[in-house]
């Protein structure tokens, strides 16, 4: 047996054990879950620098048709595994403290283990069917974890919404898989051949992208992610910031990666264009919405959306960027941003978790304030995360990856495209809303009882925060013989040796630096020392606050659809099919039956008469008629 299977077996075994045996002993359950994730982390570290044979296992076979569960052990999956298990392990540890007193702790850890199992499956999948299987399972574990506090209506609704929205994306995803199966000749990534350009390929790529649309919460299917913040905060950090939502990006890049140097051609058509536009629009809308959120987790959720939009845009631009010595700058920069973003976004979410925990489950930033004095270590780590998200030049990892994405939005001649302009505007909005968040939360005076009583969280929570803040700074660090991304097997566009001309670099550097300064400065100016949001009554910002009324629109659409269409169909079903078709049939049967009933007068003489007539008829038919 291939030892790589243990990557899947440990979390699965943990989930099964907890469900079957340790439901009543939450502490043991937690211990099992943490042990399993630490073991997989250890394995991932070992595997990342050894050669592991690919392993396959026939899952469903009919004649010479095989659906396999197979493990892809290349640089991309190994690097992603390190991110997944790394963030996973830290979140598990954080959860030990955060969920200490929860009454269904065992169920929580069981859900986490299922999630680790499914996410590992997505990362290691060597074919599309396997990826789809784990894709669905990830959605399911997310459903479980969002709905952890299922007795809250909002949590139950959010879990349902997440699952359903993902299902809508998967509808397209599966069609795309089916089409690519024939077009590329195989479902196994390594066996695929690049199909010829044409409308079918464009359609197939777009349909596959639908999967990413749901899972990575891109516009217009982004609505589930902010609601998903109803789940416990560590879950938000693990699933809804660092790993699961990145699965869409990972899937698209895996598809591109499996075609090798020619992979970019997949996106060298209208599909790539559309994907890039979807990404950049999501990025812009989410950033605008983030500027007006009051819930600390919601701000972070929208910022996640915005960053995912960046990544998706980069993947979509792969077709423009082309091949440079075996590297595709745009696609790789998207993947690289996924990698750096995972660490600092997990840090931010866990940090917000610590704050929420300290403030007795208060999530509104306007009811916090002054926390910098009371929670020094948390403030420091949160600040590092914020800096990374703002992409402060040269200091933090976020800068390097965002720089690469912005570079890839330029044309080959270094001219700015519409993508660049919008992305630069988002780069201005990001520091703006993060500064707003930071200033309101940590400075000024405490605005609620919970915030006044806040005190530093315990070491079990601080440890993951510290590790993550180190990674948030260093994960993109490549200097003087130390190459952290290589250590993590991360795809790094800077490793390709492709050097854009200095004019382009200058343009990007200048723009992003200006955007950063502008954003931070404006936010400081607006929010320093405020108790309420000065922009709250502005009509434009109201739209942002209300998420462009998209939720309401969808709700209305669904309601119209459900109430009208379903009612019409129900009407047809009841009256046309049931009433006329069947009713007619049953009425005629009943009428015939009535006629026969009349004949059953109970009078023996009539019976014998009929009997005699019957005999005559039989004789007639048998003797005379046939002749």
């Amino acid at each position, binding site marked *: 047996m291939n030892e790589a299977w243990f990557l899947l077996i440990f979390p699965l075994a943990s989930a099964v054990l907890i469900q079957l045996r340790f439901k009543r002993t939450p502490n043991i359950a937690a211990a099992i879950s943490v042990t399993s994730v630490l073991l997989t982390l250890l394995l991932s570290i070992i595997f990342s620098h050894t050669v592991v044979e690919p392993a396959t296992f026939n899952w469903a076979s009919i004649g010479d048709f095989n659906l396999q569960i197979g493990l892809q052990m290349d640089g991309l999956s190994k690097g992603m595994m390190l991110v997944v298990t790394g963030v996973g392990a830290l979140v598990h540890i954080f959860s030990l403290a955060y969920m200490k007193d929860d009454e269904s702790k065992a169920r929580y850890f069981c859900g986490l283990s299922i999630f680790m199992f499914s996410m590992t499956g997505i990362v290691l999948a060597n074919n599309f069917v396997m990826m789809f299987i784990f894709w669905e399972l990830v959605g399911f574990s997310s459903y479980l974890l969002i709905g952890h506090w299922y007795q809250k209506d909002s949590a139950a609704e959010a879990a349902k919404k997440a699952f359903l929205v993902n299902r809508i994306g998967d509808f397209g995803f599966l069609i795309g898989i089916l089409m690519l199966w024939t077009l590329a000749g195989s479902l196994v990534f390594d066996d695929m051949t690049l199909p010829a350009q044409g409308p079918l390929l464009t359609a197939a790529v777009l349909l596959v992208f639908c999967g990413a649309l749901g899972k990575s919460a891109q516009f217009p299917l982004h609505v589930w992610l902010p609601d998903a913040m109803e789940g416990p905060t560590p879950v938000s950090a693990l699933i809804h910031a660092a790993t699961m939502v990145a699965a869409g990006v990972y899937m698209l890049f895996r598809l591109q990666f499996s075609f090798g140097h020619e992979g970019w051609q997949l996106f060298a058509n209208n599909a790539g264009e559309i994907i890039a536009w979807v990404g950049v629009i999501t990025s812009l809308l989410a950033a605008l919405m983030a500027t007006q959120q009051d819930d600390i987790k919601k701000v972070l959720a929208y910022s996640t959306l915005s960053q995912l939009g960046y990544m998706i845009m980069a993947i979509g631009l792969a077709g423009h960027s082309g091949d440079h010595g075996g590297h595709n700058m745009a696609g790789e920069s998207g993947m690289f941003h996924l990698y750096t973003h995972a660490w600092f976004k997990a840090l931010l979410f866990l940090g917000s978790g610590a704050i929420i925990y300290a403030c007795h489950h208060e999530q509104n930033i306007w009811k916090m304030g002054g926390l910098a004095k009371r929670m020094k270590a948390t403030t420091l780590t949160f600040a590092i995360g914020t800096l990374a998200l703002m992409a402060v030049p040269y200091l933090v990892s976020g800068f390097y990856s965002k720089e690469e994405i912005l570079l890839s939005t330029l044309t080959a001649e270094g001219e700015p495209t519409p993508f660049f302009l919008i992305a630069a505007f988002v780069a201005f909005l990001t520091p703006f809303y993060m500064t707003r968040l930071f200033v309101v939360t940590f400075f000024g005076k405490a605005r609620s009882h919970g915030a006044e009583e806040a005190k530093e969280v315990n070491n079990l929570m601080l440890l993951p925060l510290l590790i993550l803040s180190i990674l948030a700074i260093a994960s993109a660090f490549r200097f003087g013989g130390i190459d952290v991304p290589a250590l993590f097997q991360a795809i790094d566009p800077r490793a390709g040796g492709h050097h854009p001309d200095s004019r382009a670099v200058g343009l990007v550097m200048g723009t992003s630096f200006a955007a950063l300064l502008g954003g931070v400065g404006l936010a400081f100016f607006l929010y320093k020392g405020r108790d309420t949001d000065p922009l709250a009554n502005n009509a434009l910002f109201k739209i942002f606050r209300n998420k462009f009324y998209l939720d309401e629109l969808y709700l209305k659409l669904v309601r119209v659809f459900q109430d009208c269409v379903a009612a019409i169909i129900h009407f047809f079903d009841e009256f046309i099919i049931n009433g006329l078709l069947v009713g007619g049939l049953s009425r005629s049967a009943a009428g015939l039956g009535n006629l026969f009933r*009349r*004949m059953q007068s*109970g009078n*023996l*003489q009539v*019976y*014998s008469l009929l009997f*005699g007539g019957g005999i005559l008829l039989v004789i007639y038919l048998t003797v005379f008629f046939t002749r």
Partner: protein
Amino acid sequence: MATLHEYLFVSGLLFAIGLAGVIVRRNIIVVFMCLEMMLSAANLTLVAFSRFHTDPATGLPDYNGQMMVFFVITVAAAEVAVGLAIIVALYRARQTINVEDLTTMRG
């Protein structure tokens, strides 16, 4: 000598008379007797064929037909016994054996 058709005609006539009786009579015992008449008429047909279609091997009457008659008579005897017992039970319960009053079978 009488021919086959004559026998069959007599048999048919008896059967028809029996059938008419079954239809028209209201006393259930007489109806029953008419039924017996119909059975006997059928027996006559069987015996006639037994005599006229002789066994090709021996030239003697075909006794398979008469076996049938034998069994018909036996079953008829059993039928009469049970039928009359039922009539008696019916009469005890309903105080009538007029078929027009016995309409429990009405649908």
